[in-house]
């Protein structure tokens, strides 16, 4: 369009006849070539729907992370009182369960025993160990309503070798988070 206008203006000047007049003819500016861009739209603009399953998985992941950070509380042979060397672990666990991101979860406090001792008494021993830890956590500000205790006796060993190190590992309280 601009070309046409320029041609028409030039022609008008030529035919109106000012012969001696120097006509400055502006050379047409060289046109820059237009860059052709193809917009690729496939795959964009899709919306995600955040379903419960995903949330649940995230929750599970969070629970597992907190569980992994928790410290086991170990006990002496045939005893259910918390040993002085285990108190820092209880402090750590109380802090962990009192943290903001853990407060939505319940905590199952599981009492366990080594392979010695007999059936019923061993289950009761595991229960008393779990209760000792629960009481210690409550004393450190954990809401008792969030704590569930159970005894697994000797049904849940972490170590099955017949060694003293192994038996000591099994006399423990550990935690499982529940939604």
């Amino acid at each position, binding site marked *: 369009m601009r070309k046409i206008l320029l041609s028409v203006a030039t022609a008008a000047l030529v035919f109106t006849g000012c012969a001696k007049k120097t006509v400055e003819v502006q050379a047409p500016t060289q046109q820059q070539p237009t860059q052709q861009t193809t917009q690729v739209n496939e795959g964009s603009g899709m919306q995600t729907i955040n379903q419960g399953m995903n949330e649940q998985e995230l929750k599970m992941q969070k629970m597992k992370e907190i569980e992994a950070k928790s410290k086991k509380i170990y006990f*002496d*042979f*045939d005893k259910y009182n918390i040993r002085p060397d285990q108190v820092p672990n209880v402090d750590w666990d109380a802090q962990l369960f009192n943290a903001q991101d853990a407060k939505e979860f319940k905590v199952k406090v599981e009492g366990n025993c080594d392979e*010695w*001792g*007999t*059936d*019923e*008494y*061993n*289950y*009761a*021993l*595991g*229960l*008393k160990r*779990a*209760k000792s830890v*629960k009481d210690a956590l409550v004393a450190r500000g954990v809401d008792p309503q969030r704590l*569930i*205790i*159970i*005894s*697994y*006796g000797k*049904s*849940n*060993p972490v170590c099955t070798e*017949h060694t*003293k190190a192994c*038996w*000591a590992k099994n006399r423990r309280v550990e935690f499982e988070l529940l939604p």
Partner: protein
Amino acid sequence: MRKLILFFSLVISLFALDLTLEIVKDVGDQPKIVLEDATSSVESRLDAKFFKLLVGDLEVTAHFNVDTTRHVAPFDAPVNYAAYKEANFLLRYMLYYDDKGELDAKITLLDLKSGKPLLTKAYAISDKARYPFLAHAIITDANNILGFPDVSFLKRYVVFSKYTRPKHADIVVSDYTLTYQKTIITGGLNLFPKWADAKQTSFYYTDMSGTPTLYRVDIYKGTRTKIISSPGMLVCSDVSRDGTKLLLTMAPNMQPDIYQYDLRTGKLTRITSYPGIDVNGNFVQNDRAIVFVSDRLGYPTIFSKRIGSRAVQRVIYHGTNNSACSAYGDYVVYVSRETNNAFGRNTFNLYLASLQSDYIRRLTANGVNIFPRFGIDGETIMYIKEFGRQSGLGIIRLRYNKAYIYPLHVGKIQSLDW
């Protein structure tokens, strides 16, 4: 009934007035019995196992001096009296498959001194896998025809829980030798099975998936009924003789104590209240009192208490770690840890005590002896013996001061009832 049997057996045998006293009977007093196998058409492996079961049953009665050689003779062949001059009885038996393909047995029990047949009988069993019960029936009949004291414990079922993997245990019903086994409850952690009554048609057990819950299972109907649940732990430790009351160890307030549960009324009565551990209640003295394990002295040992009274009495003044017991009438068998090694193998022995006397009798000498359970006659105790990585089933015949151990291949047993 169990009491009655015990009473008569005590009256009849002047020498066994107190089972806590050791009575050693001379083996020579017992009649010698010989076994002749006439089996020809049954798998040799089954035949061999059957012979072992017959020998084991005869031995555990403690009424015979058993010739453990497997003699062979056709069922109708004449008896070779000359070969068995030293023996008193001959039990000839034959296993065979009948027209329906079922396993049958026929037997002849002969008095070798007089040549008289004492018992001729045929047996059939629809499921071959139950062959141990065939052996137990034969020996029970042979024992009874000879007028020896009752050995019906041979035909009793055992219910036990065995660990399969962490937090998992199945419940299995078996014969008393644990040879025949049928898994009844599987999946999850299933513990502390206890027969509901002397008929052994149903048992109680605790399902630990979720809040511990006590169920009653009818083994013939394949049904289970919820009885009660309690957080923390729940165990049915004993059932009254009439089957209407249960002794439970429960922890509704996270405190293990003993409760009595009346099945007819649903009434729950707390029997013990102590801030430590009270477990393993057993009815004694016509179900009016209990014996139980408590750590009220700072270590576990055996106490008794009349139901409804406040007083608690110490029963055992021996040992510093007696953590399990079983009772029958006035007798208590308990487990005592003899060594106090936190980091090594310990010895657990069984002892028998009476609520009527101060005597105690040691029943085992070494190893780890656990899960003692009185049999229906009150004179036979079953237990598990562990040595190294092996375990064995033990039977103690109190009246005869005899103990028998059979090797076990069942994995780790959690609890058992007989």
